[in-house]
């Protein structure tokens, strides 16, 4: 019987065939923790009575959620994690290096590998054809110590992409459309696998955005087959040798199939307070009132192509006087590229504020917490009540293009009129 990508990667990894629904002890290539989940992960690791990591060079620690630290308790958490890295040889990624998922994509992950991360958006690395999934601190602590944890092999939903995106439409609109269709729990306990001829038109950065939000439909992972686009992206990073082809079998068995016609997708907005509350940008459900803050960046949409698309709209224009515009590059490397491509100038001239590469205001800890009654449009992945530090605020999710148009107009706007 043919295998889906998830079944194939796990089977290859375990050296034996695995089937959906089966419980296995899955072996892991990489583990990941960040400053929000890391201290608990380290304490659980210590509770196991272990004094060394199974594979220190593949245990990644990131200071990205509250970076730079806004208060002493979090500075102490950072210190605790630095000490852990020094003691065990785990790889430390410092304040300002970037968001964990971006750095994993830039430096570490390869197709067909397995990554367990104490962060729900670990599924981002599925863009490479890696079985990457979010877990809790205890799971990751155990995987760091023993190199494995328990796992139920997921069934797979096949997402068949057809056609090509119109101008002004991006990967973010694709995944928002899909989450609107699936619902926030539509893929719970299952894997999403993307396929079809539409893949050819989706670059790696679009794939990273799509895979990043797989978890917002409840999925364990959002998997892309690796292909020439994957290989070229790795080559661009000087990691060509990391490329491995991984594709599903032609007779793979899927739980169900959903076709998405890329040509028909229009700009999408997820309205408060759930990610599946998705409407086209011009729908009556999307409010016309003022937006006080626009955020472009984060692990979902903080890559060079995201900023290039936003800059094309903001070039020669100004943010609305009533709207703050925050730019959050997903890594130092992205920030450097923005400088080299003269995009910093565009954003500065438009009246934008820059936030340290990292999670920025998405987690509600610092750098852009919302006021009571405020409305924010962000390119991040979540709009839950209280997400950006205030349960009395509203968060709307959209693409970098829609965000740029919204920053100019001061209300949620269709980016296509600026193209």
């Amino acid at each position, binding site marked *: 019987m043919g295998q889906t990508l998830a079944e194939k990667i796990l089977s290859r990894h375990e050296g034996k065939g695995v089937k959906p629904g*089966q*419980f*296995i*002890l899955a072996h892991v290539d990489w583990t990941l923790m960040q400053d*929000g*989940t890391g*201290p*608990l992960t380290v304490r*659980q690791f210590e*509770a*196991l*009575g272990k004094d060394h990591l199974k594979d220190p060079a593949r245990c990644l620690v990131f200071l990205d*959620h*509250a970076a730079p630290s806004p*208060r002493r*308790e*979090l500075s*102490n*958490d950072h210190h*605790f994690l630095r000490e852990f890295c020094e003691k065990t040889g785990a790889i430390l990624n410092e304040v300002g290096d970037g968001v964990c998922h971006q750095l994993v994509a830039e430096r570490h992950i390869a197709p067909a590998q397995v990554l367990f*991360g*104490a*962060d*729900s958006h*670990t599924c981002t690395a599925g863009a490479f054809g890696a079985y990457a999934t*979010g*877990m*809790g*601190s*205890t*799971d990751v*602590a*155990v995987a760091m110590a*023993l190199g*494995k*944890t*328990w796992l*139920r092999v997921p069934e797979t939903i096949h997402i068949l992409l057809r056609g090509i995106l119109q101008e002004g439409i991006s990967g973010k609109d694709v995944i928002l459309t899909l989450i609107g269709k699936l619902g*926030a*729990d539509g893929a*719970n*306990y299952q894997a999403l696998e993307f396929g079809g001829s539409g893949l050819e038109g989706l670059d790696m950065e679009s794939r990273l955005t799509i895979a990043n939000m797989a*978890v917002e439909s*409840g999925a*364990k992972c959002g998997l892309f087959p690796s292909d020439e686009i994957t290989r070229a992206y790795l080559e661009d990073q000087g990691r060509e040798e990391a490329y491995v082809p991984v594709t599903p079998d032609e007779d793979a068995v899927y739980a169900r199939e959903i076709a998405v016609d890329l040509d028909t997708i229009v700009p999408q907005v997820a309205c408060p*307070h*759930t990610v599946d509350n998705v409407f086209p940008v011009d729908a009556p459900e999307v409010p016309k009132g003022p937006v006080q803050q626009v955020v472009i960046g984060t692990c979902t949409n903080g890559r060079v192509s995201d900023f290039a698309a936003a800059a094309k709209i903001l070039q020669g224009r100004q943010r609305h006087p009533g709207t703050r515009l925050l730019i959050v590059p997903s890594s130092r490397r992205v920030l450097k590229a923005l400088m080299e491509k003269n995009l910093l100038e565009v954003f500065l001239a438009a009246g934008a504020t820059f936030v340290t590469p990292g999670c920025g205001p998405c*987690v*509600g*800890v610092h750098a852009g*917490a919302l006021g009571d009654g405020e409305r924010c449009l962000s390119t991040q992945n*979540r709009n*839950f*009540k*209280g*997400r*950006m*530090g*205030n*349960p009395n605020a509203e968060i709307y999710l959209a693409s970098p293009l829609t965000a740029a148009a919204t920053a100019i107009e001061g209300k949620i706007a269709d980016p296509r009129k600026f193209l």
Partner: protein
Amino acid sequence: MRGRGVEFEGRAWLFGDGISTDHIAPGRYFHLRSNLNELAKHVLEDAREDFAKNVQPGDIVVGGRNFGQGSSREHAPTIIKLAGVSAVIARSIARIFFRNCINVGLPVIICDTSGIAEGDILAIDLEKGLIEDKTRKLKIAFSPLPPVMTRILRDGGLVPHILKHGDFSIGT
């Protein structure tokens, strides 16, 4: 958990659909994550302000659809447990939250919760897969957890499980 660790009784606290980990452990208390007892004072604060102040040991959290959606923060089930809650039951439960409950030793049940009202006394038998709503004289059956999860839960969570057996002992 009382007796053989699979039967217990408590009072129901009702929550709606889509309760996220941001409702359970809000990001504005991020700085309390290394101080779990303090963080537990804010458990579920953005869903029901009265919960953290009034929850009693043994009480049961009853959710709707997709309970625990969102972040991987294990602090969410951990502080629900620290608040004294004996089990979380919901119509459906988000995947990471679900496995985190098992790993921290908090019993978690997926079943039809529509007949349960606020304050009802619920008796749960994990092995039989039965909830008895004593207030409403209602019986709700559910599929018992797979053996892998039952074993981890019985040992009190994944860390105690591994300390007890020296490694995984789940018969995969």
